[in-house]
């Protein structure tokens, strides 16, 4: 029996576009909106900075003295000299002094304190910091300092992850290890990592080792506890299912607990690497100052605040880039969460290429294809 014929005249299909306003409650923004808001996230602070720096009547509590006027007149404010930044009140008082003595007045333009350089100055410093030779011979160029910092972070974090992740997984899986390690680690966790600085230098000398140790101490103890908690939150029903399929203790650990926790552990690592950057500044200032922190410290002493800002922004950029890189890699590493199986298919093809069993697998497949 055939079905009834439905009238097939063409009607205009009305397509409802999802119309989410800017303030729709718990609805995602449209793609375009997301991009706009994402740009604004950086643009708004930058714009605020520009306004404070370039609009003369906003803030500008100081005056940059262009011409100190008649410097021969003694007075309470005669210290004001050309090229200095002085308080607006002091500048005004000096001009009152000069005016009452009928001398040439001082001139100047409103400016911000030295610790708030304008955006263009920082932008320029961002470039010149790399091109300027170190002030003292033997000091590092900026790119060398940055590279040095990255190395410290890398090794500190690698050591801490190599020990912390397995220990955390053990603590999260077996109550025995949890009771054995966690109370003590919880206790050490409350000791700030910098207090170990002097000790680390005394034991390990002035090189990179004490710095790496500080990063390690700063992240390791947190890492064990975070990893243990993440491991503990693995869905218990998966473990039960595996048990009913015959998995025993060690198999449960390797084939269920670890793969189930892996994506979340990876996210934990991304957060913890940010912690490592926090301890970097402390680590680099103990013993022999080194790396980006030494650069910041030095520029601050020379009052080159545009360089200080540039250095801080560089740390931010390196951190953000690392995190985005890890996030990007994560999409390939965990295809069951992202649906991106490219890496796995590649690995599979790669293994096939070098496998002698290729022909066997192929015949198996064709045999079942005809079933």
């Amino acid at each position, binding site marked *: 029996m055939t079905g009834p014929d439905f009238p097939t005249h063409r009607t205009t299909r009305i397509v409802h576009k999802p119309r989410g306003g800017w303030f729709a409650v718990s609805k995602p923004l449209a793609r375009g909106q997301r991009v706009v808001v994402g740009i604004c996230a950086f643009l708004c602070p930058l714009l605020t900075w520009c306004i404070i720096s370039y609009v003369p009547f906003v803030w500008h509590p100081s005056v940059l003295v262009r011409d100190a006027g008649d410097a021969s007149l003694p007075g309470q404010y005669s210290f004001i000299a050309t090229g200095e930044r002085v308080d607006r009140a002091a500048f005004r008082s000096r001009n009152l002094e000069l005016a009452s003595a009928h001398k040439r007045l001082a001139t100047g333009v409103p400016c911000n304190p030295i610790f708030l350089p304008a955006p263009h100055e920082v932008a320029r410093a961002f470039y010149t910091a790399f091109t300027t030779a170190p002030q003292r011979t033997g000091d590092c160029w900026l790119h060398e300092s940055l590279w040095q910092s990255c190395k410290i972070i890398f090794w500190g974090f690698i050591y801490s992850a190599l020990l912390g992740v397995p220990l955390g997984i053990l603590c999260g899986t077996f109550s025995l290890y949890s009771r054995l390690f966690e109370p003590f680690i919880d206790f050490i966790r409350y000791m700030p990592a910098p207090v170990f600085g002097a000790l680390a230098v005394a034991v390990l000398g002035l090189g990179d080792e004490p710095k790496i140790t500080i990063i390690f101490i700063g992240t390791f103890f947190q890492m064990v506890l975070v990893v243990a908690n993440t491991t503990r939150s693995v869905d218990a029903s998966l473990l*039960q299912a595996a048990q009913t399929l015959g998995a025993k203790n060690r198999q449960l650990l390797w084939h269920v607990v670890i793969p189930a926790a892996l994506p979340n552990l990876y996210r934990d690592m991304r957060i913890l690497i940010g912690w490592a950057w926090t301890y970097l500044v402390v680590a680099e200032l103990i013993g022999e100052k080194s790396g980006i922190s030494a650069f910041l410290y030095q520029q601050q002493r020379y009052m080159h605040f545009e360089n200080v800002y540039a250095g801080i922004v560089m740390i931010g950029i390196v951190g953000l880039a690392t995190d985005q890189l890890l996030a990007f890699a994560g999409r390939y590493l965990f295809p069951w969460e992202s649906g991106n199986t490219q890496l796995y298919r590649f690995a599979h093809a790669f293994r096939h290429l070098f496998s002698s069993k290729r022909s066997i697998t192929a015949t198996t497949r064709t045999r079942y294809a005809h079933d």
Partner: protein
Amino acid sequence: MPMTDPLKLPSYREQSREVAARFAELSRRPVVLKLRQLGREFDSAQGPIVAIDDITFDVHQRDFISVIGPSGCGKSTLIRVVAGLEAPTSGAVLIDDKPVRAPGADRGMVFQNYTLFPWLTVTKNVTFGLKMKGLSKARAKEMAVHWLGVVGLTDFADHYPAQLSGGMKQRVAIARALANEPRILLMDEPFGALDAQSRCTMQAHLLRIWESVDVTILFITHDLDEAIYLSDKIVILGAHPGRVLEVVEVPVPRQRSSEQFLSGPFLATKKRLEELIYHGSEVSDAAGLRQNYAAA
């Protein structure tokens, strides 16, 4: 006072000759699972709570037994104790006369919430138990191909569980449990999370699998129609504490089909189940039954 019956239903105990012959044949088969005075208590602030108490029944080879009862009657506790996921506080679970102490591959289980391993493809989910047993990769893969064929998911072998619908996930879970060739398949409200349509499809599907595969099934459900449609026998539990009220032999002939939902034997059985579950009557009947078991 007996109520007048406008539908003129037969008694649920009335069995056609073929049905009676089937039950006689069933009872001659070897017993796979024995529950003996099984009890399980939980500690609570208000003192111990008895979840299930004095549960005794047998499951024969290739039986399809459903356990049904009101919520809180300990259905899930019962199946978890059988699976070995919880230890009984009294009595024993015997598989082939050997007491159960821990979960094992001889009792496959299908859970309500699928519990597929999200990081494994469908094929690798199915071969999980075989891998634990130490089967070779090639042999495990062959088995996976076979069992995916049985549940009709050959085309989805390389998908991840997240890419499947609820019904498909549950089919993978069934294939995964069956690939281990368990002595008994425990199913804990396996279709409870599915919508009505896929539940019907899955019930029919499960019957087909059960008919074509040598497997004994213990099925937990709260759906009366589902229990009657699928099973040979239905164990009705009463609540607080969970205890066996009656074991009903379903008089609906095999092979089952959805047309039987309105047949006399089907409705008579359903009426009896409703009486037991919703009105909690005939408890004395259950007591008599328990005596029968004790005598046996």
